[in-house]
């Protein structure tokens, strides 16, 4: 549905995105993840035909976004980052205008508007002037205009930015619903959002793609490469050096840090890499005459993957120095 090949865009001399290549099959919900200024909005603006590219190709449903811009634009619904709306218009009037501009046939127009209003939960605000709507409601109007003409591709730039938690949840539900009928690309710098809504994640940093996989596989793969972290609370009259020595004997353990957590209580952080690490560690602790109060694997989140993929070299160094 969407093909992007070697897309590069320079603002003056500064590259905004460099050599971005990906393709999205029909019906997929794709998350575009990256820190602010990574090039997410630029990529979306090129896909929607608002900006041109410096080099590379992008097409929607086979129509090149540059040379067959109009055909490509007919197939997309787009919610820009700033969610611009005509403030002086009423919700229905605005959606009607958007229908007209996107060439929805007169006989379908009313049904399409009703559908968008229904899906976005704007039923009781349909005649409200847009300027009087709250931020969350404006966002819904923005979503409604993006889907009102029943586009094949829906492109949402930071759809939940600035919403409160309840609104964010509603929006996510809505996006999932959209994913059933449409191909959706959404950008975000919020990880939980992407892992909750998207089947696939592209991580972009400083204008380059650094990862492209499902959220689960990304965390799994990253876990395999970087190991896991296990926190234990042990109790017993054993010296910290003794605990450390015992636990280090367990297969797959890389690092053991023991710190006192009170009367004969020890907090232990183990990093290592093996499937049954928690069980092995528990056995070793019991064998050493320690009571095991707590064993917890620190679950790797997409956030860890994201942070490590997008962190600058000097940022990593800085962190190491602090530690």
């Amino acid at each position, binding site marked *: 549905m969407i093909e992007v090949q070697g897309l590069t865009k320079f603002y003056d001399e500064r590259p905004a995105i460099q050599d971005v290549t990906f393709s999205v099959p029909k019906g997929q919900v794709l998350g575009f993840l990256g820190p602010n200024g990574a090039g997410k909005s630029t990529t979306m603006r090129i896909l929607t035909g608002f900006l041109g590219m410096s080099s590379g190709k992008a097409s929607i449903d086979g129509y090149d976004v540059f040379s067959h811009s109009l055909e490509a634009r007919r197939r*997309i619904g787009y919610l820009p980052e700033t969610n611009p709306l005509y403030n002086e218009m009423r919700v229905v009037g605005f959606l009607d205008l958007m229908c007209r501009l996107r060439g929805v046939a007169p*006989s379908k127009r009313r049904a399409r508007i*009703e559908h968008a209003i229904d899906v976005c939960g704007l039923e009781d605000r349909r005649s409200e002037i847009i300027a009087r709507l709250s931020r969350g409601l404006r966002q819904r109007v923005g979503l409604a205009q993006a889907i009102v003409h029943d586009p094949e591709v829906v492109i949402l730039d930071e759809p939940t930015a600035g919403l409160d938690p309840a609104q964010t949840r509603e929006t996510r539900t809505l996006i999932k619903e959209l994913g059933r009928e449409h191909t959706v690309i959404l950008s975000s710098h919020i990880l939980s959002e992407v892992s909750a809504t998207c089947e696939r994640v592209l991580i972009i940093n400083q204008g380059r793609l650094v990862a492209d996989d499902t959220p689960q596989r990304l965390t799994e793969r990253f876990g395999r490469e970087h190991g896991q972290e296990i926190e234990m609370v042990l109790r017993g009259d054993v010296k910290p050096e003794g605990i450390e020595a015992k636990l280090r004997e367990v297969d797959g353990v890389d690092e053991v840090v023991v710190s006192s957590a009170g009367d004969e209580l020890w907090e232990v952080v183990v990093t290592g890499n093996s499937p049954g690490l928690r069980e092995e560690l528990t056995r070793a602790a019991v064998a050493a005459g320690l009571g095991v109060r707590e064993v917890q694997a620190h679950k790797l989140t997409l956030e860890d993957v994201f942070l490590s993929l997008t962190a600058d070299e000097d940022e990593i160094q800085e962190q190491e120095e602090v530690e």
Partner: protein
Amino acid sequence: MSKSSRRRARAKVRKQVAQRKRAVPATATKLHAVRTTRAPARQVEPPARTVAKAEVEASRPGFADAVHAVLWRTGLLNVAAIARRELGAVFVSPVGWVVAGVFTFLVSGFGFIGTVLAGQQATMDGVFGVITGFLTLILVPVVTMRLIAEERSQGTLELLLTSPVRDWELVVGKWLGAFVFYLLLVATTVVYVVLLAVYLPDKTTISVAGLSIHVGALDFGLIAATYLGLVVVGAAAIAIGVLASSVTKNQIIAYVVSLFTLLAIWYTAFLLGLFTRPPLSLFFDYVAGYFRYQSFSLGQVALRDTVYFVSLAVGALFLTTRLLESRRWR
């Protein structure tokens, strides 16, 4: 065991307890929230969906759709939609009403009371003077300054140009919206033609569609020619305003740019023509908008003057389109 480490342990325990406490209600509220948000949505959805379906069935694609499909390809429907919104926006905003109010006040004050009643001249010259000297120069930029500059600053330009709207459709639509507003303002002055025709003591008889009407002795040909001139002058002035509005996000800058551009086109070349000799002065005389609409108010509908203003309008709109397109090349 040191004091501080015990404190740390207690803090840790407290933290753990708090975490556990938090964990339970968190899931509870989540479930609760899901239930409350989902349940009413389900109740509402079915009737709404059926309504939508019923409408789809009620209005089958027919003749209207076929016409729409043909017209849509030409881009004229987009032009109309954009112009309609623009006109709506003018009447919603105070700016439109202020412009209309100021214009009406000046026309009645200077154009009618000053010239006709106080000056005892049975002419429309005062009214036309207000339109050319004030409306097309000072008020038109007020209306046009926001056209594209506001779209840029509000970001709605992105919304329009990522819709299947060609750049020229946007530009012409914007121009048309302001132009219709201008025509409405100019049309209000027809009231004074009627007043003159009814109350002028010198009467003549004209025949309209076989009927003889007794009206005031006015040069109706001259008035009609002048109105035609005002239409093309306004078209050009608004096109220049659209161009000025497209170069900036700032409406004040857009206003100043269009005001000075209009001043330059209307009067600068006229002044230069006074101080230069032919053949240069002939060039300036032609370029000066001032002379061009002067000839309309002499009752002449000259092709070259019409061509002058129409090409000014088309040129400005073309340049605006190019400016908008340039974003894709940068």
